[in-house]
């Protein structure tokens, strides 16, 4: 099947392109940028999308999602997670290993990839665990998981608390040239914390998680990355101090990259007032000062990527005492409009934003996506930056309706999501 996308504003940061062009897609790949389309439009075998007034970019890549399958299919499945991704403009999802069983060996990796091929409408790239069972004790089957298709390793959700184990994981993985993704958290410092430590945790009588809980592990992992030479990626940066540490490490030439989530750049811990479990997330939503630092970090390139940390949970699981509710926000379907606020608020240009949603994450996990150059896989998103709408979490395609953005009036709407030349979502 052929597809012609006419007159869209093409933004492709991988080639530094921002101009109105036509794109022809053939056999799942970007075939050409025809200047003249009259003849093509008459061809009955070519589907046409008129993208005038719309933005066309490489499909978004979310390098931090929880698809929950296998094991937690009541929260999300590979099928529903991919549908949610497509609705959010994502053509590739990088999924974390904290499933049940945990993705700590090649058979689980193969299961995820098989399911994704059968039921997933977007690309799925798994992350393998660092340690067996994410227990932080002995190394997972890293080499075999790499062979099976894992694009990075992480014990996301459970930090590797033993520094010696982390060091050896970094040394072992280095020759495979995939990143170690750190969920930076000192579990002892977090204690029984369920939100940011500060005025609001005090007021609510809830256990607080101090910024230091994240920063001591960011500092440790940077030190270990320097020792081992591995590519370290810091997941979901939430504090001012982490931004400072990563900025300084980059300046010294250490191989470190980082991501931030839409909720950490748009909310403060005040969101928890009223014991709103939909705003319970780990790392917690922090203060206005932290938000400012993360935004500066996005702007100056300290933070390379925007990732959602999409963590769907069922309604029943969230409708409990705040202490008992699981951490996590369902993020795939609000990521674009929330991130676009960074553009309207002058933090990023639209080009920079798209770079952090496409090319940069593709580089970090080293996958052949995130570009619209001729010959590339035809993964694209077409969106309208002006179209306004109100977030209705009950309309999410994700099984996880747990969003703190319910009722927000936002602009930025995905019109089409295209994977390998096939339209997988249209508004």
């Amino acid at each position, binding site marked *: 099947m052929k597809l012609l996308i006419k007159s869209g504003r093409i933004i492709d940061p991988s080639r530094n392109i921002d101009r109105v062009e036509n794109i022809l897609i053939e056999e799942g790949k970007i075939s050409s940028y025809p200047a003249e389309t009259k003849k093509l439009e008459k061809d009955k075998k070519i589907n046409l999308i008129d993208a005038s007034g719309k933005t066309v970019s490489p499909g978004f890549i979310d390098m931090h999602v929880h698809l929950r399958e296998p094991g937690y299919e009541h929260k999300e499945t590979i099928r529903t997670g991919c549908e949610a991704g497509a609705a959010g403009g994502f053509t590739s999802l990088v999924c974390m290993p904290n499933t049940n069983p945990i993705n700590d060996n090649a058979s689980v990796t193969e299961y995820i990839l098989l399911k994704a091929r059968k039921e997933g409408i977007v690309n799925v790239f798994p992350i393998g665990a660092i340690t067996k069972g994410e227990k932080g004790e002995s190394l997972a089957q890293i080499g075999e998981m790499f062979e099976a298709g894992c694009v990075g390793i992480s014990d996301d959700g459970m930090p590797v608390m033993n520094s010696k184990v982390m060091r050896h994981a970094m040394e072992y993985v280095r020759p495979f040239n995939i990143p170690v993704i750190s969920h930076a958290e000192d579990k002892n410092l977090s204690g029984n914390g369920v939100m940011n430590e500060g005025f609001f945790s*005090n007021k609510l*009588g*809830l256990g*607080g998680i101090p910024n230091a809980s994240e920063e001591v592990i960011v500092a440790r992992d940077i030190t270990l990355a320097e020792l081992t030479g591995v590519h370290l990626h810091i997941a979901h940066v939430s504090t001012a101090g982490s931004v400072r540490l990563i900025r300084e490490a980059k300046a010294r030439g250490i191989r470190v990259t980082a991501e931030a989530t839409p909720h950490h750049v748009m909310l403060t811990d005040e969101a928890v007032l009223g014991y709103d479990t939909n705003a319970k997330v780990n790392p917690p939503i922090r203060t206005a000062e932290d938000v400012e630092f993360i935004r500066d970090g996005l702007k100056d390139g300290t933070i390379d990527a925007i990732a959602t940390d999409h963590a769907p949970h069922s309604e029943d699981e969230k409708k409990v*005492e*705040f*202490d008992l509710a699981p951490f996590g926000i369902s993020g795939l379907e609000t990521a674009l409009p929330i991130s676009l606020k960074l553009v309207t608020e002058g933090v990023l240009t639209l080009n920079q934003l798209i770079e952090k949603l496409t090319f940069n994450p593709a580089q970090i996990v080293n996958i052949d996506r995130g570009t619209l150059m001729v010959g590339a896989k035809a993964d694209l998103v077409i969106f309208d930056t002006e179209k306004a709408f109100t977030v209705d979490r009950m309309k999410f395609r994700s099984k996880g309706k747990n969003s703190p953005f319910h009722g927000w009036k936002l602009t930025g709407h995905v019109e089409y999501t295209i994977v390998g030349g096939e339209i997988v979502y249209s508004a």
Partner: protein
Amino acid sequence: MVFQRKHILGLEELDAREINLVLDTAASMKEVSERDVKKVPALKGTTVVNLFFEPSTRTRSSFEIAEKRLSADVLNFTLSQSSVIKGETLLDTARNLEAMGAGVIVIRHSMSGAPWLLAKELHSSIINAGDGSHEHPSQALLDLFTIREIKGEIGGLVVVIVGDIRHSRVARSNIWGFLRLGAEVRVVGPATLIPKEIEYMDVKVFYTLEEALKDADVVIMLRIQMERQGSEYFPSLREYSKFYGLSREKLRIAKDDVSVMHPGPINRGVELSSEVADDVNSVILDQVSNGIAVRMAMLYLVASGGRNV
């Protein structure tokens, strides 16, 4: 004046007018308690459920007496931690009680915010009888009532709260209550038990008891949870008591007519020396008897909206 609220969840959300209305209503209720027939028909036909997830005989008994004096039908529901783990969710339990006709649910829970969850999801009136480290409104209201009765006026008083501020719901509710009515509030305790950014609640922070006690009109001693000793919060009860226990000697630093309060139960020789606990300045037993009148007022106001006090 009419009480507009359906629930009493915490002192933080009450303004001075509302707090005074509760205290004034409590004063009328106290008269009832002093009559020969200590009963009024105010809550006749209303079912009140005491839903306690933590064992607290004192608070539960006080609520129960208050409910019976208002002629309510009372149902006690005390759940041990183990039956919660085995069984249904908090919401399911509460919905069942509501279906049985509970007009008011009085809830005590070990987790902060539990009463808010019920208020959001149910139709019954909810009274918070203590949630986690968050609020304990009936305790703070009876403390305010007791002090107002003794001193006449709360505005301008210096109130010192001593001990484990971090984990104390009594501290939080009293901070809001005394601040709303115009007192100066000081907190003092080991640095590990004074939470970060507490000063933004407009309290003054001290780390030595002697300093905090200067010019004090009211001293509220918090109960120390025994499991905190020997943990990372402080080395031993002996050391805690040496620095933060109230002796007669330290009490001399405060004003002569200082009132000493304790939410109970007291660890004698830890928070308070026995001589202080039994001192003329101690108002601990007044607190207990006023507790019934204050709880009657709370129940009456949420159930009836404050008509014909």
